[in-house]
């Protein structure tokens, strides 16, 4: 994910970029949980499939969120310095 909406891409206003971050966290968790659920059904690995899916989703989503927050901070500092 090096391009597009989720970098400090100034073509899009802040609220558009940041609204996606939370949705990604929730979406990744839900999506991977669903995948885990399907795997559980197929291979009888309850509850590890769902558990694994949720954990990976949360970790990945949070990592992205933290990265975005830190970038937002740097962006705000750059704005302050430039002004």
């Amino acid at each position: 994910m090096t391009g597009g909406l989720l970098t400090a891409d100034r073509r899009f206003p802040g609220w558009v970029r940041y609204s996606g971050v939370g949705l990604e966290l929730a979406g990744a968790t839900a999506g991977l949980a669903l995948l885990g659920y399907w795997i559980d059904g197929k291979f009888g690995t309850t509850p590890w499939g769902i558990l694994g899916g949720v954990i990976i989703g949360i970790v990945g989503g949070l990592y992205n969120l933290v990265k975005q927050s830190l970038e937002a901070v740097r962006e705000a500092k750059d704005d302050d310095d430039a002004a």
Partner: protein
Amino acid sequence: MPAGLSTSDFYYILPELVLTGGALLVLIADVLLPRGSKALGWITMLAIGATLASLAPFTSTHVEVAHGLLAVDRFSLFFKIIFLGAAAITTLISMKYIEIERMGAGEYYFLILCSTLGMMIMAGGIDLISIFIGLETMAVSFYILTGFIKPNPRSNEAAVKYFLLGAFSLGILLYGMSLMYGLSGTTSLRTMATAFVGQERDPRLVLAVILVVAGVGFKIAAVPFHMWAPDVYEGAPTPVTAFLSVGSKAASFAMLLRLFLEGMPSLNADWRILFEVLAIVTMTVGNLAALTQSNLKRMLAYSSIAHAGYLLIGIVAAGAGYTRGVTATLVYLFIYTFMQLGAFGIIILMRRQDVIGDELKDLSGLYLRRPVAAFAMLLFMLSLGGIPPTAGFMGKFWLFSAAIEAGFVWLAVIGVLNSAISLYYYIRVVVFMYLKKDAAGSEPVFSPPLALAVGVAVVATIVLGVYPRLLFDVAEASARTLGAAGLAATLR
């Protein structure tokens, strides 16, 4: 009908009388005690405690008093507990703040108690007149409290904005109320309800509904009546902002529930649709606007707007005839009080002599300096975002399930999506506290009252998240006393 109050009326309004006495005591004590005495805050706590104790005889009461002006029932009791709890925590978090900002303590605490009194009347009012009196008492107290830091231009600006917009919206509400009176011939909500049956297509009544929704919408800061909230929240003294965001909101929802479920239940097809639209727009605008805020108070203002949107989902479910909607709204208001006050408590912690402390960057490195405070704020942010196992998650869960039960699945879906969007700005706070290391200014120090207040909020947020059943049952019993069931009970 004999005129005047009877002795039994005075008995039933005992809590309000105790609170009034306490407020006057604070004013007198302010004159008698030496300037800058810390005792005033504790006298206020005493007054609040006495009022809470005076609620005890009324836990299963269900009467109308003062010729149908006020109801003393479980519904008003539930809200009175919320208001007094919020006032107590606000008093605790105000103590240090008042010293730093050099505010006049006596008048400040007096006004806090006055606004609490107004809220209590709003929750118990079942007549247009008494609701209006309660509303005005609360509102005027808040106008003054908002502008309390006189040398600060932002505080003055916030007070003037709040006053002007409040006055205009009150006019709109009053116009709606006058139409309700004119079309029914009475100001009593319960009598009005029967008068309106069969009148649903009357355009004047529809106009009344729209006007009342607009007036109430302003008080709860629903979009598009929310314009005052971010500026007022940012400019007002932080403890006032905290109290405003929980107490005024809870009281306004109590008023909303009384007006619509007791006064106009047969018109629910009209007002339910209005609230549905309001809920969706409010949640979305509130959350999207909060994403780019760097000032914590403004961020919490927009978050508060979004939460009004979630609460309106419960109202929509209630409008479809599901008591579960009312219950969920009551539960969420209770939970919201604690997590919001807790978050503001931490912001007040950051206020020192050399630092204002209400910007996001002021929280940098809090984990290194005050790990307990950082943990508390983490908890409040997670709860506001609706993440298990916090109380906020349970509250949202019940609100959304009430909506689904009532058939508003799309509303619940939009609610969940909005909660997901909101995660960013709540967790961003956590990122600042834990991952940024550049802490500036002097050490933030917990004063004992502040520590007590934040501690209570933390315990409430954890306990209500893990074991919410008790609160839910109490709220359900309270919700059942509203509306037609309530009317039937008093006619026994």
